[in-house]
């Protein structure tokens, strides 16, 4: 491969990688805020993402509702679904079984339920596209070609992340969430309602996943299996450090770029492998992830 081509590939890989990476980062963020506070890896995250996309598709395309109704309705639906799941299902499971494994299995159950529901409606039968709300004209950034939609995706994702960080670090609610994640007993002492806080956290995770779905659906065509993108989000969270929020974000961008680089410079077949290889490498060299702080070994 000559240098000229390699340079074009490099630029394109980074540009495309940042765009898809911003969506992986959002999903990774959604996963990590739950993990940090509930110690549960939410294996339904992909299906919540997928279901939110279909809710929006149904309202916008099939019911012809205006977009300024569809967007908040979708976000609200995602919030309620996750919050209620936490309150109605997980709180019950946590009460009767002290082991975390059962909570994880419950999330697996949720993923099957959501996928089954979407399949039943028949919308998942053929790939569908969500109409792009931003024109898909191309622009050149250096020698890389991206669309206006790509720029909108990236910009929105970054804005959402920034808003989230501000909330989490500076507002009373955000502080309460952090307290719960760090020390639930102490959080109760200062008056945090654990149950309500967990509901809020799960609901927020749902909203972030829904935003990710709304951003990327016009780009990738929706199918009932599109939740499999969550694998990349998990890879991002692991690379960044599973309990680190900035780590999740950085991890998302890294996975997006690595995916593209592997595809461009190694082989298209290897693209699917890229996230798993990243996971393996991180677990071997630095298990706590890039932002995971010092490696702690817990005595069991």
């Amino acid at each position, binding site marked *: 491969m000559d240098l000229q081509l390699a340079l074009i590939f490099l630029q394109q890989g980074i540009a495309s990688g940042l765009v898809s990476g911003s969506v992986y980062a959002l999903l990774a963020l959604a996963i990590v805020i739950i993990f940090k506070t509930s110690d549960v890896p939410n294996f339904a995250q992909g299906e919540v993402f997928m279901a939110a996309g279909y809710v929006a598709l149904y309202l916008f395309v099939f019911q012809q509702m205006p977009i300024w109704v569809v967007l908040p309705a979708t976000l609200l639906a995602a919030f309620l679904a996750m919050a209620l799941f936490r309150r109605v299902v997980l709180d019950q499971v946590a009460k009767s079984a002290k082991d975390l494994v059962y909570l994880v299995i419950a999330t697996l159950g949720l993923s099957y339920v959501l996928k089954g529901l979407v399949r039943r409606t028949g919308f998942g039968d053929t790939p569908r596209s969500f109409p792009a709300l931003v024109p898909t004209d191309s622009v050149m950034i250096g020698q890389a070609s991206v669309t206006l939609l790509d720029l909108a995706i990236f910009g929105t994702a970054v804005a959402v992340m920034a808003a989230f960080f*501000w909330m989490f670090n500076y507002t009373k609610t955000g502080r309460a969430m952090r307290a719960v994640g760090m020390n639930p007993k102490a959080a109760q002492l200062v008056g945090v309602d654990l149950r309500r806080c967990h509901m809020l956290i799960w609901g927020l995770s749902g909203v972030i996943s829904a935003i990710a779905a709304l951003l990327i659906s016009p780009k990738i065509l929706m199918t009932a299996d599109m939740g499999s993108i969550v694998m990349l989000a998990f890879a991002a969270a692991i690379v960044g450090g599973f309990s680190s929020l900035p780590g999740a974000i950085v991890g998302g961008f890294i996975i997006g770029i690595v995916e593209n680089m592997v595809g461009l410079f190694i082989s298209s077949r290897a693209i699917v492998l890229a996230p798993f290889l990243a996971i393996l490498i991180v677990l071997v060299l630095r298990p706590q992830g890039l932002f995971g702080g010092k490696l702690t070994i817990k005595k069991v």
Partner: protein
Amino acid sequence: MVAETAAPFLDVAGLTIRFGGLTAVGGLDMAVAKGSIHALIGPNGAGKSTTFNCISRFYTPSEGRITYDGRDITRMPARGMAGLGIARSFQNLELFAELTVFENVLIGAHVHAGRSWRDAISARPRGIVEHVEHLLERTGLSAYAQTKARNLDFGHQKMVEIARALAIRPRLLLLDEPAAGLRNREIAALDRLLCELRERDGITILLVEHVMQLVMSISDRITVLSFGTKIAEGTAAEVRAHPAVIEAYLGRETTQETLHG
């Protein structure tokens, strides 16, 4: 001296706590007067911690009633305490280890501030920062404001726990062995702080404690437990001389030195 005719600020009546077939505490009556420092003492296994955890709502009693400022709190969930102005510290410390001293106290103050949902999404209000700085000063932690809690020595960590408890502006402070593990100098500082809280802020304090030096020095009233029942109650002088108390701690041989602290 505090008025004994007023209704007790914290009233425990007929408190019984059973774990399966074991009765840890049986029929305890204890009245804590407003603005006083009340100590709960007794040998190991007496049921002090169990009682304390019940009052601070981490356990629910099998029988009995707990009344706070006229309100029945027997079944109230633990998270409701902060709203009523009851704060507690933990013997084993439950700090936010990764946060700085300032942030630990700040979380306490901020999370508790305001009830409306506008407060819920507001960023740190101005008054809170000053409140936190003030608390750090009173507890002698100003110099350590930016240090991570887990990097402090034990004595200072205990102070952080107390400072955070104070951040919610409590009217009742429940302290679980605040002097355990402290050096003499630190115990003296704690003594001063607690007296100050009683005199200046009018805070009512209930403490479970083993360190007799502190108990005898600051307590207005002392309740003594042994094997789950109250065996004595009264002023420091009264309790010190009480034969049942002496026996409980030391068996038949009496050495009053220990009780003098």
